[in-house]
């Protein structure tokens, strides 16, 4: 196909222009955030979490949902340097990396398919939303669980069980919070309850915070992609704590390994061919 200006018309249109609905800074005057004035409509009137969700999704959520998410963030980020993303923060601390780099690196580490609360929420929401459709179409809980891939003899369902503990200590407080803030159980949460009961009874695996959050946020009308964007920094606080804990420590002093603390399984020493 020969090239013509029609081929690059799109880029020509966008060259030197930004057209957007997310907002605009009017220097010295105000800032628009979507259809709201930041200083007149939002400042001192909504929480930071409400603003965060507005920026991530375009939705101005209720104060109650903002509170729910803020509390949810609190339990996604523990100051315990054994957790993988927090280790990153701690290692960065021993090298006196900048606090921003350390925290961003830790958050990036938690952008994982197995833990972290952001990408895992996306996967868990996809699962619960697709599973609800199948359940409504008539599939039984047994059949839905049986269809899941099996790992180590147990169904590998995102949102159930954890890599390091059988019971998630965050579920009961979340259930209490959800009720206290006035949220009723939607159809995703009702399905999650049924799945949790089945998984607990047959495999000793309970729902984890990812599964619970996925069901709750699905009931609130969010898409998996939206929740990924909302929660992408949810481990930041614990990473920063572990970073600062190591800042004053000597270089390489966080969980140091001796040479023989690593098991070598490769080729033995060999001459370099010419």
């Amino acid at each position, binding site marked *: *196909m020969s*090239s013509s200006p*029609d*081929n*690059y*018309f*799109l*880029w020509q249109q966008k060259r*030197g*222009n*930004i*057209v*957007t*609905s997310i*907002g*605009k800074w*009017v220097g010295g005057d105000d800032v*628009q955030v*979507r*259809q709201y004035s930041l200083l007149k409509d939002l400042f001192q009137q909504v929480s930071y979490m409400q603003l965060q969700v507005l920026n991530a999704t375009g939705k101005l959520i209720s104060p109650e949902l903002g509170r729910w998410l803020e509390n949810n963030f609190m339990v996604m980020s523990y100051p315990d340097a*054994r957790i993988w993303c927090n280790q990153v923060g701690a290692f960065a601390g021993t090298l006196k990396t*900048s606090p*921003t*780099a350390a925290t961003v690196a830790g958050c*990036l580490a938690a952008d994982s398919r197995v833990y972290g609360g952001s990408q895992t929420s996306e996967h868990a929401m996809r699962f619960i939303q697709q599973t609800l459709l199948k359940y409504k179409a008539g599939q039984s809980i047994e059949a839905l669980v049986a269809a899941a891939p099996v790992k180590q003899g147990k169904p590998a369902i995102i949102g159930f069980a954890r*890599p*390091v*503990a*059988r019971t998630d200590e965050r579920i009961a407080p979340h259930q209490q919070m959800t009720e206290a803030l006035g949220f009723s159980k939607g159809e995703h949460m009702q399905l999650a309850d049924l799945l949790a009961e089945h998984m607990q009874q047959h495999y000793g695996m309970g729902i984890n915070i990812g599964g619970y959050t996925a069901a709750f946020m699905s009931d609130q009308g969010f898409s998996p992609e939206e929740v990924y964007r909302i929660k992408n920094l949810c481990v930041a606080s614990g990473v920063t704590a572990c970073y600062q804990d190591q800042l004053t420590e000597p270089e390489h002093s966080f969980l*140091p*390994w*001796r*040479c*023989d*603390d*690593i*098991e*070598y*399984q*490769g*080729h*033995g*020493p*060999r001459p*370099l*061919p*010419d």
Partner: protein
Amino acid sequence: MSEAEDFGFSDKARTRLCLEQPSPTNPYLTETLYLAGYDLQQLVQKRSFSDTLYLLFCHQLPNAAQSELLEKLMTGLICASPRHAASRAVMSAGISKTNPEHLLPIGLLTLGGKQGGAAEVQLAYQFLQQHLNTTAELVLQQNPASSGHQHPVPGFGALFGDVDPLMQKLAEYLLSLEGAGPHLRFAQQLATLMAKDGYGLLDTGLCAAVCADLALGARESVALYQLFRAPGLIALGMEQSHLPIHALPLLEDEHYVFQP
């Protein structure tokens, strides 16, 4: 964390790559480092950077043809256009006086995407592997190029609405090398068929094809693509960091259209 239950975590890290012979007087210091069995000191003296890079991932040294193919790919991808999104990101950071140590990570993170970024390399690698035993014609029938997508299949597509001539020329040169293998040949056949619709081999697809020919691994090819692109990103960012902040355009209000 439960201490009573065994979740299968190992009590020791393992590697097939690095053997560290400790110092006789300090078990934390490495006296000699072997990479896949070869003494680093000897590698430094006798082998190139790209040969040693290949060793890290394949645990064997490349033959002459493989070495040349990797070296030429690395040179070909060493600097993306200053108009590339990752270059623009690192240039924006450089001009705005971001800490110099952040410039490369900023560029590489931006470059990580599934659409024209590093994550697409893995998809392209897997696509090429899956279709290698079919014909390019059949692949095109199953993945019509005129579907309106910029990337009708991973690693292949249009750049600014047309075939990317730079990548086309690089692919043709790499194909002329002895080390070029079936993935690169198949990729080029597919690109040739797609050209009539304005699609061609993208940098991600080219990197994937060469990495597959070198058996560097699908997941590994993601990070290698970032590595290959890294020198140009650093250079572009650093160049801007030496300039005053107003040396890059900042859009005026009349060109910022807010449509709530």
